[in-house]
């Protein structure tokens, strides 16, 4: 339960990002601010500080001030407020995680239902498609799609998807995980078809659609609901990885993955930039995993003593 609270807190904080940026920190999280000034302990200092030690060649962004009004977590190499970017980035990370997981579950359920229920040629074709995507390493598949789609905008007929659109990472991550859901749903449908209540419904003269809609689907939905939090967790980790490889969310937009990438160059001087979003991801994903375990125990009590949680 505590983990659900943590999760809710993270979501609320991220949703409040504009409030924080405009009302508290007075900062624009997307524009570089290389010669801006800020206040530390009542003194006005530049955001990008001249290196005092060493050769004095570079400038270093200001470190964490722990003052929510002035660069709470310090600045990144563009002089932008890391705390504000963290909150804005969290919105994108969460949005991509949830939307991609929704897409995965929707497509996976449809494909799994069709393959398991209709069998024959339909099953043959769909199962082979799932097999191929399953055998294709997730990151490589995502890299292929991203390299092609993110360099140039995608145009299909009258529709244009801009290269920087969030829909691209959502679509890519949503598609690569479809077999995870599709295969379990298909298996579930196959075993449901053998059950007595389905036989009874057939005996009563239910049509295929009615059978599918009111007998099979409600029983399959449990499986999908149990998978959903885990798919969000997976999607968020994948988004972070893709953004870290600069093929996820595109600048100046931010996500927790891109902020870790921003922080990579500053790792030894200003570790907070990379540490903070990583902790945010780990806590969110941990909460989602715990939530997933909880949902499974609630919906499938038999599994409870297996995991002992």
């Amino acid at each position, binding site marked *: 339960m505590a983990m659900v609270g943590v999760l809710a807190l993270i979501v609320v904080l991220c949703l409040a990002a504009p409030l924080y940026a405009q009302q508290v920190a007075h900062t624009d999280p997307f524009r570089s601010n290389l010669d801006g000034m800020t206040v530390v302990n009542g003194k006005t200092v530049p955001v990008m500080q001249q290196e005092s030690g060493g050769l004095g060649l570079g400038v270093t962004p200001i470190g964490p001030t722990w003052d929510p009004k002035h660069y709470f977590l310090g600045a990144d190499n563009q002089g932008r407020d890391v705390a504000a970017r963290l909150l804005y980035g969290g919105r994108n990370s969460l949005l991509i995680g949830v939307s991609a997981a929704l897409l995965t579950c929707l497509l996976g359920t449809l494909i799994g239902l069709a393959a398991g229920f209709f069998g024959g040629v339909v099953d043959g074709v769909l199962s082979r498609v799932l097999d191929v995507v399953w*055998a294709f*390493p*997730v990151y490589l598949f995502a890299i292929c*799609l991203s390299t*092609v*789609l993110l360099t140039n905008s995608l145009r299909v007929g009258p529709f244009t998807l801009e290269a920087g659109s969030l829909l691209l990472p959502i679509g890519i991550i949503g598609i690569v995980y479809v077999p995870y859901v599709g295969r379990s749903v298909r298996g579930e449908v196959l075993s449901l078809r053998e059950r007595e209540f389905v036989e009874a419904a057939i005996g009563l003269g239910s049509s295929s659609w009615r059978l599918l809609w009111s007998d099979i689907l409600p029983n399959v939905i449990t499986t999908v609901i149990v998978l959903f939090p885990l798919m969000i*967790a997976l999607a968020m980790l994948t988004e972070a990885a893709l953004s870290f490889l600069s093929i996820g969310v595109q600048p100046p937009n931010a996500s927790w993955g891109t902020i870790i990438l921003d922080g990579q160059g500053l790792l*030894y001087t200003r570790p907070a930039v990379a540490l903070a979003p990583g902790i945010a991801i780990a806590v969110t994903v941990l909460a989602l995993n715990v939530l997933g375990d909880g949902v499974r125990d609630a919906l499938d009590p038999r599994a409870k003593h297996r*995991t002992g949680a």
Partner: protein
Amino acid sequence: MLRFVARRMVSMVLVMFAISVLVFLIFFATPGVDPAARIAGRNADQETLRAVRHDFGLDKPMPVQYALLMKKLFFTRDLTSYVNRGAEVIPQVEEAAPVTLSLVLGAALIWVVASILMGVLAAVFRGSSIDVLLMILGLIGISMPVFWLGEVVNLLSQSRFHDTFVFSWVPPLGYTPLTESPFGWFKSLLLPWLTLAVLYAGIYARILRSSMVEAQEQDYVRTAYAKGLTEHRVLLRHSLRTSLIAYFSLFGLDFGALVGGAALLTEVVFGLHGIGKLTYDSLQNFDLPVIMACVMYAAFFVVVANALVDLLYAWLDPRVRVV
């Protein structure tokens, strides 16, 4: 068994074919932009574009283009990069492969040992605080992004605590070949191994624990208890043994996936020039021929690994062969 082997081989070849077609379509037939411009890299001049069109037969029909690409990748093996003019791609992949294999093999050894210890301990003491603690540790391992964990390890071992006795042995980031210095190889890989192993140790410990607990309900385990065997003996000799079959079939899949790309992030963070780093570097300068080669070879490796796992599984568990 022979029929099972034959059928599995046929399906393996079909999946390889399908993946190669999929990769080909992604790179050559995605709507939006001329594939020649994609392959030639950013800001290529007209002459390069013409060369690309000629080399890849882009004015010819799709199946011919596909066949040409496959020929360049697997038969003549003379696919060249246009970003690094004239650099042959396949030798780069071959050079990078041992690095990735070293990384994944070492990490696999660590995570197998760690997860079996954790899983068995948790199953033996199930319901106790040791069980809860181990499973929470596993869950934390699963939840951290591996590249971020790598950066934290770098921060501690290369910078913050590099001068203390704990991390003073850590060499600068990079890879030392085994043939050059076995001890240097070990030192350069120890932290990347541990980083990569943390994630998988967590997953595998949880899986092993739940399948061992599940096995405890099986009839043969009840029989074993009825024969008067001690609980530990039943757990280790009966539950663990059957649980390990499923465990290692999953292990095969993940091992293949790691060699085929999932280790990419670890390689990038620790500066190890394996297949993943090669893919990453070519991603940075849009060197598509290198990406295509890496993806194709890695995906094929994964498919072969999966097939081998299935065969091994069928050999261990004859029930599978009947399907």
